């Protein structure tokens, strides 16, 4: 287990229990992990193993029942809603399975939305670079309905990166995409790690998606069952078949 000091995200003995008494379910059950910058980590595991719950707690969207978590050096456990909101605004980026773009805003406006919410200026160069990188520079004025699913998700990735966050969380980002579009989105996430040095945490149950990562953490019943370097798709497939 690797609890690095330079970790962008880190947690210790994290537990998240739903319900109480007989019906209590420990969705995350004593997880301690560190996610360094410049690394793409996939979190895999069967359906119901607690992947999403872990991500929610790490991202400050949900509160753990016990344990501690840090994002970019700040302990998030115990922060109030306002501070958590600020943290998400400044340090985190999100990509969801449903693209979750605002239909009335153009692609470019969707991308700059987090900055505008935070009341920060848009770095025009950075925006141009992002638009170029995600490959929708020529469609920046289109509204989401006029874009394909893959394009929409690339806009979502750009939105996650616009505020230069320390960490990007992506929960099944390719769940609604065909394989060609999936590849583009994954390449994009890969590049944001390699070129921009972000930490990306990618939740998936798809071995092909997991194999894009540097490292793969496998959850079973809320516990870490394996934590390995990714060497290739075959290895990932093998590991995932063991559960």
């Amino acid at each position: 287990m690797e609890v690095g000091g330079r970790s962008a995200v880190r947690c210790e003995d994290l537990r998240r229990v739903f319900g109480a008494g007989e019906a209590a379910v420990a969705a995350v059950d004593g997880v301690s992990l560190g996610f360094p910058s410049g690394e793409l980590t996939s979190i895999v595991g069967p359906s119901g193993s607690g992947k999403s719950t872990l991500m929610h707690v790490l991202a400050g969207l949900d509160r753990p029942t016990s344990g501690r978590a840090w994002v970019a050096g700040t302990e998030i456990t115990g922060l109030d809603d306002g501070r958590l909101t600020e943290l998400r605004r400044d340090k985190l980026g999100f990509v969801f399975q449903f693209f979750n773009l605002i239909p009335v805003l153009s692609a470019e406006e969707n991308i700059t939305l987090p900055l505008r919410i935070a009341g920060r200026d848009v770095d025009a160069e950075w925006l141009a670079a992002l638009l170029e990188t995600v490959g929708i520079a020529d469609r920046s004025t289109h509204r989401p309905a006029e874009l394909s699913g893959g394009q929409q998700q690339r806009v979502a990735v750009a939105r996650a990166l616009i505020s230069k966050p320390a960490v990007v969380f992506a929960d099944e980002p390719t769940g609604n995409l065909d394989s060609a579009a999936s590849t583009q989105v994954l390449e994009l996430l890969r590049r944001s790690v390699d070129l921009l040095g972000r930490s990306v945490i990618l939740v998936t149950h798809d071995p092909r998606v997991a194999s894009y990562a540097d490292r793969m953490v496998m959850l079973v019943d809320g516990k870490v069952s394996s934590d390995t370097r990714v060497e290739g798709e075959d290895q990932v497939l093998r590991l995932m078949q063991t559960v």
Partner: protein
Amino acid sequence: MFSLAIRNFSARKLRALSTAAAVFFGVAMIAGTLMLTASVNNSFDDIFAEVNEGIDVTVRPKVAVEGEFGTSFARALPETLVEDVWAVEGVDLAVGAIGDDTITIVDEDGNRIGPPQGGPPHIAISRLPEDAPFQSFTIVDGAHPAADGEVAIDSITAESEGYEVGDTIRVTGAAGERDYTVAGIGEFGSGTPLGGASLVEFTLAEAQRLTGKRGRVDEIDATAAEGTTAAELATAISAALPADEVEVRTGEQTAEEDAGDIQEGFGFLSTALLVFAGIAVFVGAFLIFNTFSITVAQRMREFAMLRTLGASSRQVMAAVLIEAALVGLLASLLGIAGGFGFVELIKGLFKAMGFELPTSGLALEASTVAIAIAVGVLTTMVAALNPALRATRVAPLEALVESAGSTEREHERSRRRTIIASILVAAGVVLLPLGLFATDDIEMALQLLGLGLVLLFIGLAMVGDRFVGPIASVLGWPIERLRGVTGRLARENAQRQPGRTATTAAALMIGVALVVFVGVFASSIRASLSDTLDRQFVGDIAIVNTDGFSPIPTRIADEVSALDGVGVVSPTTLIPAEIAPSANEATVGGIEPRTLGRVASLDWTDGSDEIVANLAPDEAIFDENFAEQEGVGVGDELEITGPSGDVITVTIAGITTRSRFIVDQVALTRDTVLERLGARDDTTTFVNFAEGADPKATREQVDALLAERFPNAEARSQEEFKQDRENEINQLIALIYVLLGLSVLVSIFGVVNTLSLTIFERTRELGMLRAIGTSRRQVRRMIRYESVVVALLGAVVGAVIGLILAVAAVRALEDEGLELSISPSLPLVVLIAAILIGVVAAIGPARRASRLDVIQALQYE
């Protein structure tokens, strides 16, 4: 389908409730009005039945012309007629009585008791002989007045003013004022408040003296001897008395007639209340339509799924309509309960003005329940009809495919809708001026206006979606400038479903249009009034009744003349009369030719001030509009019939224009009106101070004289006079605002409803916004601004429509001297009100949106 509808209804209890709120207020107003009307009518039936109980025949002076107010201008009967009635075969008992509402009870400070301005009448009644089998006034404490210095008063007045047996009470009448000892406290009928009126019982002789009716009585009551029926006796008495002077009826007829007179007056109020209820129902219908449109749209998948399972489109429609009927039923039942609250509200408002509505037996009649339920259920179902039809158009395939709806058919439908809406707007625009300009029949005009407005509003709401985009962009611009991205999103959200926003805003538009219309119309009336007074009232003070309209004693003029510093005194009087040959009613004023020119200024169409100064007893001055209506001009001869049936012939000597403060319709010399048409009192007495007199000191003298000798009269300067009239108008306007306010309240519920439903639709989007760093406060702001944009949309368009209507209405009444006046603060008031409405409507939805569970919202489908 029925069970599905019930399921849907109960699964969304909260929504059902908030949808029902849209109809609730209208139904409550209808139910309340019906209850109030029924109970007031019953009360008056009871009161007059009790009061006339035991009386077989009543004899009253014949009234040739009724006039608009309850005050009788007819001359009282000579007391000698009582003897004549006694002499009729079959009479067991005949009693002469006084019933006169020109007295005033005053407190120690010389002020009229009760509300300072207006208020219900004070009535003098005479004590009936002990052996009379009819006793309308029953003593509950003390005794009937036994001497001229004693009175008995009604228990309600005694209680509210704190009079007890043995106290002294001061009453003024035509003969001046006098202190009396309260000998007893009694109840009229069975103690039901007579609309707040105060009663003072005197001995007959004192009642006659005080009211200036020495040797006269207002009514003769008779009972029949054994073996004679009331009807027979009435016929017999009628035959024995001069037919052109008296009105003979049986006691029962009189009771019905008296109750009927008051009920008729009250009927106007209930009609007015029903109109306001209708407005609230109409506004509510918009919201029902909107809510059902939204929920049907949200449930299209569900309907498509039902269709794939084999449900017919009829069944889908039935499911929606049954749900609507249930919502309507819920609203009706709550509305009936709310009706009691509305009754209290109206009673409270009237009480604030000093009127006590008698609602002894406030009861829910079966017909009230039936009407309330019918209105609530039918309104809801009619409003849900279009959404229900839309639900039937869903193709079964839509359950499986995201959107399989044919856009071509949508276009066709939208085109048709635009055509229908244009026809409605056009029809409304045609009907409104017809109502305003084309007819003299008030009722017809109001109906045309009402229908025109309904069509216009529906049409506007239908095409509204076309305009939502551009207007919202303009209105949202400042918010966007000031508030950045939350403002931007709010504005975009308001424009996202233009149809919805249009209907929601339209509901508010109706209320605001009516409020602005009433406001501008009222300020125009105030301005015209002010202008009229400036031009026509050139004297120093006018002496009028403290209630603003009742008559004042003629002796005031003489006594004020005698004061130091008073220059010119010019009294005027006013009576209702009938004009021959047209048989129209007219208010006929009496003026003093020699002095009028010094206190008032007239504008002439035909004639000059010379004509007033030399007005002969058989000459008349006509107002231009009235002369036009009658089709007469200078030199024409007409007959005028006074309230007691006196007829005189006059020649028109001159025609004035825009001088209605002095010459309302017809003016004769005051002597003619007093001596030949039976007027007893003055209406307004104008006074000019003498040259060089100290105005302040003179005014003080006049005030002192009035306070001492005529407490029901007061002196008003031009400014004060204006202020009084304005206060009267303002009071009425306030009442109208409260009633219209209920419709506005309904439309606020509409904004709340629409916001809640759209927030529900955008759950996932909100979750995402929160996830990427939007604070709760920003979410609240975003919803609030959206609400404000919708409210502004409704208010601004509504204000423009209201303004146009008011301008048109004032134009239509230009002949009557009305001139347009728009308060410069109007735009600001509308803006602030709209912002407030938007902010208030957003409180609940914004809080809910900001408290959304982010994770659940993200997973929400």
